[in-house]
């Protein structure tokens, strides 16, 4: 792992650009300068991987090894450099604490929001903590962390459901919002309880079982515009900080609240670059506690294909870091866009990203989510377009570059040869 990081750093900074890059070294090189082409990372592709590999949901969501291996091999088939191989991260803790779940033969488990675990304020005092290693699907979580580390050769990393999203899972979104407005003292009690009684001992448990000293918190419920910026500031950032501090004392780096930087506006007419910039700064504050006016450009889950990408580029160039230079930028392809395509539009979009961001270096490309029914051709096409147009040195005029439709073996045939 260290060798890959060093190799990627030397390549990215232009000190030594020889040999082939593996997934990790390509990510490092892309963040620091440029690799052979912009690196591809992914999160939340579990439902898609399960569908492509034809693994039954009852196995995929209960057998950690199967889940990790499935995501790993499907990612490898596509050419994704680093996949985040976790599954239904918003359910584990709530399920272990006793939330009613619905398990189906075709989908991931889901919390039954009709009957939240905390229906009344008094219910909070009845929930038993701390979470134990054999509660709910915690053995499945532990297996995923172990197998992820084993298969990727990296240090074990835990993943958890951040305080706000867990509060939604336990209380339901409307009831929680109502608490935050009408009964703030109860809402603060709930968030404090989640951090102190649930997360801190839970992350200690995961560390004990797997050795994971880094824990990353998913928090989609806290994304803008699920919450306004003021609400993120008041309800997400302080509890991310509380968790970070408490975990640091236990030797764990807990990163919660990063999703605050994920600007998820769906309506192109409501796209607002100023709000987006504030989201990025908010994410830096949630993760690090440092109050900066700039944040790392992250295109996240929003409908990026309809945004003014030129405005993002301008932001990047206006906010260079002294000595370091351009901010690394995580570009993205929207989940519904990758599902629907068509391939020609995907190619045009990736070409536009390369033209605006890769040309200057420090561009990463992320699949934030690949929906279950996405035709594999679309994913292969996106990556092929990135490798074609984003191959360094990048052509002056991308229109002169010929793109060839990718040819790929069906997954089941390809995986047999691995």
């Amino acid at each position: 792992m260290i060798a890959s990081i060093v190799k990627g750093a030397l390549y990215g900074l232009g000190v030594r650009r020889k040999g082939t890059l593996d997934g990790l070294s390509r990510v490092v090189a892309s963040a620091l300068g440029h690799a052979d082409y912009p690196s591809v990372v992914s999160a939340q592709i579990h439902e898609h991987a399960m569908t492509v590999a034809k693994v039954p949901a009852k196995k995929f969501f209960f057998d950690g090894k199967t889940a990790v291996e499935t995501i790993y091999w499907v990612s490898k088939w596509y050419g994704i450099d680093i996949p985040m191989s976790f599954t239904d991260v918003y359910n584990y803790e709530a399920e272990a604490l006793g939330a009613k779940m619905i398990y189906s033969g075709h989908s991931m488990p889901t919390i039954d929001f009709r009957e939240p675990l905390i229906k009344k304020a008094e219910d909070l005092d009845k929930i038993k903590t701390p979470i134990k290693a054999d509660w709910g699907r915690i053995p499945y979580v532990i297996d995923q962390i172990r197998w992820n580390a084993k298969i990727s050769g990296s240090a074990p990393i835990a993943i958890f459901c951040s305080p706000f999203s867990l509060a939604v899972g336990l209380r339901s979104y409307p009831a929680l919002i109502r608490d935050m407005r009408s009964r703030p003292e109860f809402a603060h009690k709930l968030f404090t309880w989640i951090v102190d009684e649930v997360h801190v001992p839970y992350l200690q448990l995961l560390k004990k079982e797997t050795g994971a000293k880094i824990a990353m918190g998913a928090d989609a419920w806290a994304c803008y515009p699920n919450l306004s910026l003021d609400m993120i500031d008041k309800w997400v950032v302080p509890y991310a900080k509380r968790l970070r501090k408490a975990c640091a004392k236990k030797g764990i780096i807990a990163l919660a609240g990063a999703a605050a930087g994920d600007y998820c506006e769906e309506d192109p007419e409501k796209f607002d670059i100023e709000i987006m910039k504030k989201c990025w700064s908010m994410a830096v504050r949630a993760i690090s506690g440092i109050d900066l006016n700039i944040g790392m450009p992250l295109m996240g889950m929003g409908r990026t294909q309809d945004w003014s990408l030129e405005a993002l580029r301008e932001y990047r160039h206006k906010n260079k870091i002294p000595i370091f230079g351009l901010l690394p930028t995580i570009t993205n392809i929207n989940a519904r866009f990758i599902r629907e395509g068509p391939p020609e539009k995907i190619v045009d979009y990736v070409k536009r990203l390369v033209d605006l961001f890769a040309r200057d270096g420090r561009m990463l490309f992320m699949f934030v989510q690949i929906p279950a029914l996405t035709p594999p051709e679309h994913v292969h096409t996106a990556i092929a377009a990135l490798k074609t147009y984003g191959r360094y040195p990048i052509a002056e005029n991308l229109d002169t570059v010929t793109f060839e439709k990718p040819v790929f073996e069906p997954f089941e045939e390809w995986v047999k040869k691995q």
Partner: protein
Amino acid sequence: MSGVVLSALEKLKKCIKEGDPDGAKAETEKALEETEDVSKIVKEALVPAIMEAGELWKKNIYFLPDLVMCAEAFKESMALLEPKLSQKKVKSLGRVVIGVVSGDMHDLGKTLVAVWLRSTGFEVIDLGVDVPIETFVEKVKELKPAVVGISAYMSTSMIFIKDVIEAIRKAGLRKKVKIIVGGVTTTEKFAFDAGADAWGRDAVDAVEKVKALLGVS
């Protein structure tokens, strides 16, 4: 007397627009003490409050929490008004059956759409979440709605939207009902490919689409 009632209605409207469920409940009780004209309360307080909240949503002034709290306030008020409304023959813009597909428990978007439709004057039969395909078909047969709203949140459950529409078609009911699709994983293209008549991006948009489908304003 009229001035007092208007003042109570204004307060109720404010509570709903600003998303204050407890206030909405209290003001509805007061309004009911002042007048027996329940339709007037709905028309002059609830409907404009929800409409104005929708406009603020479109302008990026209101966010999801604001809409959800408006809906909560509306529900508190309607819980008191509905028993009295049902005693009267109230003309509806049309009957809408709405539900979330099988295996999917996410009801936030669907509930918002139901509230917005009700506030606009539609009769809404909310089938809830995790609704089997057969239930959609049975309810279309039994209740003869003008519109069916089908929602899904998960990328694995959205496939059932197409199955619901196909089942409605096979039952020979497709021409008798308009179908609108919604949910965060869906798109307009998906909705049309699945055989729906319209797609609602959010609650406010969905109401406009339903009105357009039925040619009402």
